[in-house]
């Protein structure tokens, strides 16, 4: 391949297919930010592959002019594991939703993360089943009234980041669909991570669950309700007026930065902490009791599944030479019939 890569622009990544999400769906923004990020990665178009499951978000691959595979419900991580293991030269993105990843595909999500396959997983969390027209999802809050739960859901929701951290994820992040700059930056970070990069994106389903994330998007209140994580920096939000401190009971608490608390007493973010406890603590901070953290919760290095599998192959070839069929056929006890 030539070393001079053509300079690509976002529109080079747009396919010729009409986009069929509902008007004002949060998916549009995520698609747009993705098209912005890909040209910055220094890879030609044919080296990207988007793999998805089933759900509104999973139509994503059809709208990208890259390789793409719209698979079946919940199984994208398994399909993508094989693709990356077979073809390490490809950058593999998995596009999924809260039902796809955490309900029907929960098992695959758990295993792909623990294996640390080098995939970029973007989970569009809208806390609802949109494609099937509005049933509650595994991330819907308890009590959620939907078509399938007319008097309120009984289930306790899953927290996607807690799940990922529990599976020993090496990269965990969160962003919001219309927080354009932050989403672009987060996707970029995910793209550069070696290993499973798990990104939860709060995504508005304006048809079946409109405003679920208003606390994080409404300009009037969002500064009080979200907190941007920066590695090595103290946790400060509400335009510098509030911070997060860990109290004597090892629990986070919101403190006013009115002079009575010094910044040094605040919780400092460390995305590289070898243990996931801090990231877990941050993942448990939920609105309205706490501002919800946005950004990279965890980013550590660990060997990837695909790398080690292929290393074992290379080592075997080095030690034993390229497989010889005749030798293989004649292994063990053989005898001659005349």
């Amino acid at each position: 391949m030539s070393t001079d890569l053509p300079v690509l622009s976002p529109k080079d990544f747009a396919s010729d297919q009409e986009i069929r999400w509902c008007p004002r769906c949060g998916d549009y923004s995520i698609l747009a930010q993705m098209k912005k990020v890909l040209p910055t990665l220094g890879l030609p178009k044919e080296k990207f592959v988007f793999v998805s499951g089933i759900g509104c978000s999973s139509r994503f691959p059809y709208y990208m002019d890259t390789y793409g595979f719209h698979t079946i419900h919940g199984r994208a991580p398994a399909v993508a594991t094989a693709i990356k293991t077979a073809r390490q030269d490809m950058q593999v993105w998995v596009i999924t939703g809260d039902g796809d990843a955490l309900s029907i595909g929960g098992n695959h999500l758990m295993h792909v993360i623990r294996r640390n396959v080098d995939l970029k997983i973007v989970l569009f969390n809208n806390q609802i089943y949109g494609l099937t027209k509005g049933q509650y999802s595994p991330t819907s809050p308890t009590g959620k009234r939907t078509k399938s739960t007319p008097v309120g859901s009984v289930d306790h929701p899953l927290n996607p980041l807690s799940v990922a951290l529990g599976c020993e994820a090496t990269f965990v992040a969160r962003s919001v669909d219309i927080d354009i700059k932050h989403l672009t930056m987060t996707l970029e970070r995910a793209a550069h991570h070696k290993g499973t990069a798990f990104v939860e994106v709060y995504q508005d389903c304006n048809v079946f669950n409109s405003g679920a994330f208003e606390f994080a998007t409404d300009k009037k209140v969002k500064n009080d309700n979200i907190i941007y994580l920066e590695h090595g920096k103290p946790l400060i939000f509400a335009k510098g007026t509030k911070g997060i401190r860990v109290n004597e009971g090892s629990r986070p608490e919101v403190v006013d930065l009115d002079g009575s608390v010094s910044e040094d007493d605040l919780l400092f973010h460390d995305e590289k902490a070898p243990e996931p406890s801090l990231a877990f603590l941050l993942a448990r901070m939920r609105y309205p009791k706490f501002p919800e953290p946005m950004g990279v919760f965890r980013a550590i290095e660990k060997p990837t599944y695909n790398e080690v599998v292929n290393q074992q192959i290379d080592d075997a070839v080095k030690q034993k030479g390229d497989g010889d069929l005749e030798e293989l056929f004649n292994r063990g006890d053989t005898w001659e019939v005349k």
Partner: protein
Amino acid sequence: MSSTIDAPEAEAQGRRKETLETVVVRFCGDSGDGMQLVGTQMTNVSAAFGNDVSTLPDFPAEIRAPAGTLAGVSGYQLCFSNHDIFTPGDAVDTLVAMNPAALKTNVEDLKRGGTLIVNEDEFDKGNLTKAQYLSNPLAEGDVSLQAFRIHKVPMTRLTRDAVDGLGLTVREADRCKNFFALGLIYWLYERDSTATENWVKHKFGKKPEIMEANLRALRGGYNYGFSTEAFTVHYEVPPAKLPAGRYRKLTGNEATALGFVTAAKLAGKRLFYAGYPITPASDILHELAPHKNFGVRTLQAEDEIAAMSAAVGAAFAGELAITASSGPGICLKGEAMGLGMITELPMVIVDVQRGGPSTGLPTKTEQADLLLAMFGRNGESPLPIVAAQSPADCFYMAMEAMRIAVEFMVPVIFLTDGYVANGAEPWRIPELSELKPIEINHPTEPNGEDDVFLPYKRNEKLVRPWVKLGTPGLEHRIGGIEKAANSGHVSYDPDNHEAMVRVRAAKIDGIADYIPEQKVDGPESGEVLAISWGGTFGAVRTAARELQAEGKAVSHAHLQYLNPFPRNLGDIISRFKKVLVPELNMGQLRMLLRDKYLVDAKGLNKIKGKPFLVSEVVEAISDMLD
């Protein structure tokens, strides 16, 4: 030992040696007694000696059912012969029973007049009770075993004596008694034990006292046979006249794995195997995993669905993709197989059939997944199906399955079964030049106007192109939603859907033009045609030939291709007055044949988790002859 004691010396002592054509030996004991191990050793030694061999391992699903109980009995049957054989034998000539439970569950298969060797030390009150014997069948005056030539051997005591002085615990010493039994059988059938001794030395090389103990037990058994006057006869079975060449013993699962490695090499591709552990298919994974220097990547997936999905992903990436499972796993794979079908990607799904439904009989054989393979997916989703007829045939049918998959861009189902997968037989090692190459073409240029790539544009066989992921300019999207012809874009157009359903089916029907015509064993027309598939080959072939030898107008057609059927099958069927379809199910192939050819086929159906006896098939065919 053959160097220390030779046959002429035994004869000088007044022993007779008889020459036999075919012998069936069964070892049975507790599942912890090492019966599979000694059965395998006897098979290896007999095969290496030049006999044709056929085996039937039979073990419980529990790794260790309570010792001494009927549920915990494990057996290994081996038939060896001086001529070509197709089955492990109907009835047993020599039965080795290591405890009362083994005797009780196996003695009914022993021929009248057959040799029965029992470890009398295990016939104590506790073991007799566990085996539900009210009295000791070995006791003086008991007549229940009088039809047999019985040898009561105190194997436990003799084994302990043989290993005395090595510092073993009683438990360790007792674990050697399977080798004592093996040594005795080696003497009885004049087998050379060198290969087994070498195996013991290799296996236990790091534990010298265990190695020495097993060798002593083996020799002890042999010497016991030699020196005990109870054994007045011993036997030889001369080598078989198999086609010339170099041979090796293979089980069906080993052959399947080897077939896939070979297919990959012939295609110049890498193999990607994804599977989830399941009896009786796991050995395929075990066989493939070490072949890393052949570029074989194996993924032990989190579940059957993931394994199937990964196979689809690997095929999309451009690898030779395979997965293997058994009935319960195949059920779980159904949806992802449908994805492979609609995206028209090449892969092979192996179904090592076992007794069903549900968990069923995990370690027993059955052929009841044929209709699952035919119809076990939603929508109109036919897939090609091939089946292996014997352990060594798995090698060739695995390659054939892969050839069809890549030539026609389609997932292919390869059916074997527990009997074929665990059974072993001699395999003539082929010359590489005998094997047909597998051709694969990945496009590198757009195939449509204006440099557009059309992923669903078909060739004359109705096959779409297989793009290697990462090829510049051929970026495209596929998925499980119905595709528009040529472009592969999502399409809900009614006419397009019908056209696509029909073209996918037509592609698979068209495979009939590229597979061999069906062969008939026996006259081309006649009274009864037996049609079989899969692992019943041996029993049906042997039965048909026995009847042919009696001058009966009986022929046999054994199907290796089940979807589509060979193009001349209807013609063959029309030339016989009656058709019998013996199957280890309720009549699944029979249903397909009746549907396709409107033939009034009769069934011989056995659902016991065991293969057919030749005699059962002979009887069923005879009943149809006037």
